[in-house]
């Protein structure tokens, strides 16, 4: 069998921080300490706390993969509410104590075993062995050690996609637009190699920047952007210098609220519909856009639908399609409210059984009473078997 070479790492990552940005990076900002690279083999232990150098890298790493408190999914889950929600950056800053000495170990092992002196070797003559359990140290029971407080939140696994899918259609549209703008900006800047790499998730600032831009599209589907794309291109670069600069707490602008549906609607009024005709025929460009959408919203375009995507409109339609309801009840409650409103129709989430009918009539209380009086099971048949005699009489065994 021919050996197939392993896939290369995503391009566009600066070499020194590559290990810390490995795809299995836990969400912790101290990922450098968790996944040691050749340059940084710091392993936090109880005796040795992470130094401020690791702390200094927090903002970049916080931006790499969306954290648990991802900005976009949160605002999506709010739907139409316009409440300010903390951004990812803010959340990360709150998660991580400002003082490095407060940084705890990510995974705390149990204390070492200590061995008590054997009762026959105790020199103290007044020693009497315990007769009851009270006051003794407990031993064993480490099965759920990691479920308790010994697994810091920052040690959790973080993947490429956000934890929750974006379902707000407006936010989805904004994300698709952002993906198209960013991919096009990279192409304009000549960074063709970075097109398939991993880009920083960014925050609200980046989203706003792409929403403010005016995107036009020619007849042949080639987009054109009126505005400054250099800021966008910079935002798509892993920049360690920026990280050290940003070791200061983020500016209040960044800490502002996420975009609500109203905000996006305001931006959307300024957009012309032409941008949706941007061609996605080029597989490289399409790959970059769909990958970015997956990273931002959690919507993965299935492979077999890829070839059908010729422009952004098709892609948007695909992404915005609401998820299929899991149950019929769910579907009726969500989409067929007209059925629920019918006066002569009642809808039950489960099968209506004999007991339900009795309960609706108010007769079940009496039945229950009588059953209890006779010491019979109220629910079920109490493990009584089927009539075996009848089966034998009918010729079965």
């Amino acid at each position: 069998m021919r050996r197939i070479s392993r896939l290369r790492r995503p391009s566009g990552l600066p070499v020194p921080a590559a290990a810390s940005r490995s795809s299995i990076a836990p969400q912790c900002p101290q990922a450098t300490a968790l996944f040691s690279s050749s340059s940084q083999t710091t392993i936090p232990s109880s005796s040795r706390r992470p130094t401020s150098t690791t702390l200094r890298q927090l903002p970049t790493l916080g931006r790499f993969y969306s954290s648990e408190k991802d900005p976009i999914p949160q605002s999506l889950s709010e739907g139409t509410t316009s409440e300010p929600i903390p951004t990812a950056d803010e959340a990360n800053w709150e998660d991580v104590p400002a003082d490095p000495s407060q940084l705890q170990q990510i995974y705390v092992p149990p204390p070492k075993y200590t061995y008590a002196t054997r009762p026959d070797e105790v020199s103290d003559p007044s020693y009497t062995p315990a007769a009851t359990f009270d006051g003794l140290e407990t031993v064993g029971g480490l099965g759920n050690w990691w479920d308790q407080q010994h697994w810091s939140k920052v040690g959790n696994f973080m993947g490429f996609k956000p934890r929750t899918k974006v379902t707000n259609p407006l936010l989805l549209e904004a994300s698709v637009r952002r993906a198209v703008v960013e991919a096009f900006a990279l192409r304009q800047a000549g960074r063709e190699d970075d097109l398939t790499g991993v880009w920083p998730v960014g925050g609200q600032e980046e989203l706003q920047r792409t929403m403010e831009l005016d995107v036009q599209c020619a007849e042949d589907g080639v987009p054109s952007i009126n505005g400054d794309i250099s800021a966008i291109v910079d935002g798509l670069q892993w920049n360690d210098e920026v990280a050290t600069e940003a070791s200061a707490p983020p500016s209040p602008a960044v800490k502002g609220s996420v975009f609500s549906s109203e905000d996006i609607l305001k931006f959307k009024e300024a957009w012309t519909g032409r941008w949706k005709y941007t061609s996605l025929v080029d597989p490289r460009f399409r790959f970059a856009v769909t990958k970015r959408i997956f990273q931002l919203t959690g919507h993965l375009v299935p492979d077999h639908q890829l070839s059908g995507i010729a422009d952004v409109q098709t892609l948007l339609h695909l992404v915005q399609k609401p998820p299929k309801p899991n149950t019929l009840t769910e579907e009726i409650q969500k989409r067929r409210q007209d059925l629920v409103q019918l006066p002569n129709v009642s809808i039950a989430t489960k099968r209506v059984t004999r007991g339900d009918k009795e309960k609706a009539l108010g007769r079940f209380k009496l039945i229950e009473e009588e059953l209890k009086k006779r010491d019979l099971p109220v629910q079920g048949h109490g493990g009584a078997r089927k009539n075996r005699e009848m089966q034998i009489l009918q010729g079965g065994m």
Partner: protein
Amino acid sequence: MASKGVRGLNEAMRSLSLSSQTCREAASHRIPSSTFTRSMATEAPLPTIETTADTTPAAGSLWRPATTVPLTIFNFPSFEPQRLESWSSKHLNLPLRRDILHHAVVYEGDNTRQGTASSKTRYEVAGSHRKMAPQKGTGRARVGDRQSPIRRGGGKTFGPKPRDFGTKITRKMYDLAWRTALSYRYRRGELVVCQDGMELPLPDAFEAMVARGDLPQDELRRSFKAKWLTQVLETNQWGRANGRSTFITGDRRQNLFEALDLVPKQGRALGLGMVDVKDLLETGRIIIERSALKEMLKQHQSDLVSSVFVTNAALPRRPQSGQILVE
């Protein structure tokens, strides 16, 4: 009924009118001079269809099914799309044939049956073959030996004997079923192909703790791996809440297989040699290593690839899979 009656009446009237004519007139009715048959229905002019070379659509405008389909290769634990490849439609986009899948699954089930059930006949039951009672004079029924099937402790007349339940299936059909199962998964978006060397990486902090000897208890190490894997699967929506996943790798990967054995409710791991068509149809999705998928298709394309060496270039070539589209 009424219409039938009316029709019958009409026919009767028609025959009456025919018979009332003279023979010569009738003959002219029956045998038209121009054509030798004539239907009772109104005749419509034949459509003039001209099939010439000009009217056939150009070769380019004909719709042809795509010969290749795109396939995304992901990074394993992070689920990051890393590149796009083109795979043959004959490998990953076959139409669903439930009948073929059924045949294959039944064939596998038959061949998996152990078939070791066994019971003793009267000739195998141990004991003396002495006649239990005299033939006559006891006033009781006639009895033979105590191994008789009608006696308690006797042999079983038509009991099970070890046998082979295995059935046969055409090799080409089985291979087609294999690719049909993969195609079905592909079209449903349930085929996640990951890069080679798929293995569950553990955090360095944990490895360091193990190396330092902070976790002497095996229980602790195992529960860590279980929790870590559960987190990976839940983050990627591959876990129990999403219908479990089947992981297929070329050979055994220590961390991945060990961790999945600890949390069987989240998914299962299989080496390439252990996979069946049935396994491909079970659980929420198949997460397979690229090389394993390639090897799997290589082993199951007997209906596509001739076993005879042919040098004729005009013949259709074997399907090509795995060309890189975007990297």
